[in-house]
């Protein structure tokens, strides 16, 4: 049988059935229990006529049910599509309709949101509950059946799934205002997990932190690295972001994968004291620029741990470049105090091109392109046009080259790559990947205005701390109404907390909105 994303979990369930697979806020499951419960979900899903897409959306809190649901979907031979509870109903409806899903998995905490969101989705026929619920709740949406899973049964044997089938689709912010689904095949994610497993040599005695929102692909690393190694996944409460440092220490976490924002927050909360994390052995950072002072503070807080900056957009399957932090050397070769993103994995090529598409030599700044086995299957769900936009064939490379939109430079001395910025309007804010165009489109939908432009502000120590909206309109829009209205359209983390109304936007010589001039109004 072909190896799929779930194969590692099944092997561990047979080898270490009585070991704890996951410790979450509401309790723990052994591998045996988690497999049994996931089997019930897989058996239930197999009873339904699935959508042709082979994809099942799941809207859950980060707790035990979430892992049962994700494993259940994979066991049933389908791919999973995680949806965040922080998304407003309209965005959830857009995603479910885009997939054309007939079944949505949810838990009782997320059910009210699920019912509201699915009320405008024609494709949805039923909601499968991952925990106990009063079945009459569905009265809010009579077009949808609320169903409970079958009784937990014997271990469900996964069907033989093609390695080219989708393991998951993760939706990310889209520049035109519609989220886009990044497709990842079993083949690609299995190759990645195998590569990283060999690198970090985790064993069943390791303790892995699961802190990332399940709609970020870093969570795929956390879950499936842990379960392949037969070790225990530790899940802190998603509400208590103030207590993560204490959780890492108290749970004796040995492996963590964090966004730099989380480490910066701990530092600002004075929780990154030297020696704070004596049990950590592997500390990884991904998702945004890692600043040298944060990496250094972390290395001192976790004296036994390696600290690595890993880089990669969701499209390239979690990550594809690595740099191990060395307090002397990394700092010396950093640019703008940002830790290098290092070198690509061994079967992957990284290259830099200019705007005309010419390959640049080391030492010159340009756009970072990645070519590797994962780019062959790279694409967006039902969006061939977008897929074609981001891929380019370059002679001499066996695989298509993915245009990351990141600006980078290769160090001529050691060949390491440094991330320098973005070539477009995509930002990372609090670990979230956001297209400014996505927010601007939402503003234009909600308000009677000519134009909107988002300026990340303030920026402290190179880190975006907030978003300000400039709106060209003839009417005044009060801050409170602005925030409340936008919160119904886009996730809270994307809503600018301040709006500035202008009669007319400044434009630059090419007639485009002069963003630097807008920003200068904030200084």
């Amino acid at each position, binding site marked *: 049988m072909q190896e799929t994303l779930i194969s590692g979990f099944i092997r561990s369930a047979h080898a270490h059935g009585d070991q704890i697979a996951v410790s979450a806020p509401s309790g723990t499951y052994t591998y045996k229990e988690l497999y049994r419960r996931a089997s019930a979900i897989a058996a239930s899903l197999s009873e339904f006529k699935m959508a042709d897409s082979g994809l099942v959306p799941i809207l859950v809190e980060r707790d035990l049910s979430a892992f049962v649901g994700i494993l259940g979907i994979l066991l049933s031979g389908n791919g999973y599509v995680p949806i965040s509870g922080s998304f407003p109903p309209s965005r959830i409806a857009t995603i479910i309709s885009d997939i054309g899903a007939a079944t949505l998995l949810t838990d009782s905490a997320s059910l009210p949101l699920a019912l509201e969101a699915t009320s405008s989705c024609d494709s949805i026929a039923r909601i499968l509950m991952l925990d106990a619920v009063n079945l009459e709740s569905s009265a809010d949406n009579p077009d949808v059946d609320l169903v409970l899973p079958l009784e937990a049964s014997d271990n469900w044997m996964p069907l033989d799934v093609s390695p080219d089938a989708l393991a998951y689709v993760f939706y990310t912010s889209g520049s035109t205002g519609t989220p886009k689904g990044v497709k990842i095949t079993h083949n690609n994610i299995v190759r990645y997990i195998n590569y990283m497993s060999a690198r970090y040599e985790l064993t069943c005695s390791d303790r892995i932190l699961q802190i990332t929102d399940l709609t970020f692909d870093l969570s795929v690393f956390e879950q499936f690295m842990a379960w392949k190694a037969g070790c225990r996944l530790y899940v802190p409460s998603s*509400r208590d972001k*103030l*207590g993560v*440092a204490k959780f890492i220490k108290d749970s004796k976490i040995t492996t963590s994968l964090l966004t730099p924002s989380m480490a910066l927050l701990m530092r600002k909360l*004075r929780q990154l004291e030297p020696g704070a994390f004596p049990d950590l052995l592997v500390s990884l950072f991904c998702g945004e620029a890692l600043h040298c002072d944060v990496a250094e503070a972390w290395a001192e807080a976790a004296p036994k741990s390696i600290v690595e900056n890993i880089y990669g957009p969701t499209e390239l399957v979690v990550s594809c470049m690595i740099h191990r932090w060395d307090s002397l050397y990394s700092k010396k070769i950093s640019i703008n105090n940002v830790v290098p993103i290092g070198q690509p994995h061994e079967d992957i090529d990284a290259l830099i091109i200019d705007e005309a598409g010419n390959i640049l030599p080391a030492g010159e700044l340009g756009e970072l392109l990645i070519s590797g086995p994962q780019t062959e299957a790279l694409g967006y769900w039902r969006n061939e046009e977008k897929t074609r936009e981001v891929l380019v064939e370059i002679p001499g490379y066996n695989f298509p080259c993915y245009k990351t939109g990141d600006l980078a430079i290769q160090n001529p001395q050691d060949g390491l790559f440094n991330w320098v910025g973005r070539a477009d309007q995509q930002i990372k804010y609090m670990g979230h990947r956001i297209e400014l165009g996505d927010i601007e489109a939402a503003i234009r939908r909600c308000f009677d205005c000519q134009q909107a432009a988002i300026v990340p502000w303030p920026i402290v120590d190179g880190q975006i701390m907030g978003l300000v909206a400039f709106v060209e309109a003839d009417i005044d829009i009060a*801050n*409170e109404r602005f925030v409340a209205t936008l919160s119904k359209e886009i996730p809270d983390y994307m809503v600018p907390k301040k709006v500035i109304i202008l009669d007319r936007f400044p434009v630059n010589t090419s007639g485009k909105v002069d963003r630097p001039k807008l920003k200068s109004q904030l200084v």
Partner: protein
Amino acid sequence: MITKAKILEFIIENGGSTDRVEDDTPLFSSSLLDSFTMVSLIMVIESEADITIPPEDITLDNLDSINAILAYCEKST
């Protein structure tokens, strides 16, 4: 001295709304305030109440609502 009015003023300046915030409304665990706004709020509390909040006291129990903040400051001064 830190007052309820001062905390509310901070919340509104940072995108909150008076309609949504009661004395017991969760500020942080509800995502009303994001992580870094919480850091700023802690600095405001420290400066207004003239206290230093030790790392072990930076918990939801002490800081997640207007009432919790006022009770914590009263206990610490």
